[in-house]
């Protein structure tokens, strides 16, 4: 069962801190979204393994877009 990581606030992808296959724990830092010249961290919603990353650095993202999938 994969959990979707959603965009918490619109902006652009500043940096991706994990790779597909990485094991993450809940609240680990996944990526950074830049909005209004401010870097905002996005955290893992659950424990698991990163199974898919749907964005790349520089992408513009809207509220509730799917950033990546985490397999529990």
């Amino acid at each position, binding site marked *: 069962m994969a959990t979707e990581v959603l965009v*918490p*606030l*619109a902006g652009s992808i500043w940096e991706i801190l994990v790779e597909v296959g990485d094991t993450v724990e809940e*609240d680990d830092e996944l990526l950074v979204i830049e*909005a*209004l*010249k*401010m870097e*905002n*961290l996005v*955290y893992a919603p659950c424990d698991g393994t990163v199974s898919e990353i749907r964005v790349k650095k520089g992408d513009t993202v809207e*509220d*509730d877009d799917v950033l990546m999938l985490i397999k529990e």
Partner: protein
Amino acid sequence: MVFFDNMGLMALTPGMVFMWLIGLTLVYLAITKQYEPLLLLPIGFGIVITNLPLTYLMEPGEGLIWRFYHYGIEWEIIPPLIFLGLGALTDFGSLLAQPRLIFLGAAAQVGVYVTFFIAYTMGFSLQEAATIGIIGGADGPTTIFLASKLAPQLLGACAVAAYSYMALVPMIMPPIMKLLTTDTERKIRMKKGRKVSSREKLFFPLIAAMVIILLVPASAPLIAMFMLGNLFRESKVVERLNEVSQNALMNIVTIFLGLSVGATMNADVFLRKEVIFIFFLGLFAFMISTASGILLAKFMNLFTQNKINPLVGAAGVSAVPMAARVVQKVGAEADKKNYLLMFAMGPNIAGVIGTVIAAGIFISILK
């Protein structure tokens, strides 16, 4: 001997030297701490230059910087042009998604009016008191605009106070925000607003300009230019005008704004005890505005299911987008997965408009 008599050194006064220190301090803070460098750097330099004797730079009718000041600020050209750029930079989406947050931007004007009455009872004239109060709105161009109309003698001091407090937003606001909210309130996660269509965003500047100017005609120079800039942005057909308004034009007029504001601050005008009061009253206004936004948000929560995180109310002081960033930071300290930034932008932008309206009301009553 004529050469010696014409040398600036001979006409130097201790007050001028003291003003150099103030000017150089602003330059220093702009460079090392990056406190509002785009403004405080030219302002600081302007202060130093205007306090070099016998230059006649601010001599009415002939001085170079006087011309910038006279045609740019006294003629009310520069602040409205800055507003054109701000309008082009502003995305009203976060406000339109949650229109109720407009009230928080309005609440933050309480500091303006409270300070206006206090300054008046302290002996400032009505016009001066209004100019000091508007510092609480934390909006530089509006403060300069109002000062040039009502109390030009206070323009330099009020502008420097406004820009200094905007630079100090990350230090002034958090203690007030923490004092007035509980940990549970800071953790409130807000529900996302509705999607805003591009058609709404297109109609908004047109309708807002007409409604606001019909109600408060004296706010027209700033509001008209702001909404025109926003129309450039949202119409999507004049990308060149949009781009030049938010970048090149705004940067150019900022140079003249900073330099002329700094140059109004000669030692005779600035080194008076009233100026100290202006700085204290300005800070007070700013703090009251921060607090009143928070308190209104808490009050609104009494009547609504869809709770507002009261921190967002603090962003009602203009200072775009620094105030919104501070809200995001303080919110994330309580709950790192809480993203308040975009919610805070709503009251933040409403605060800009609110401050312009407050200034317009002052002008129509006191001018």
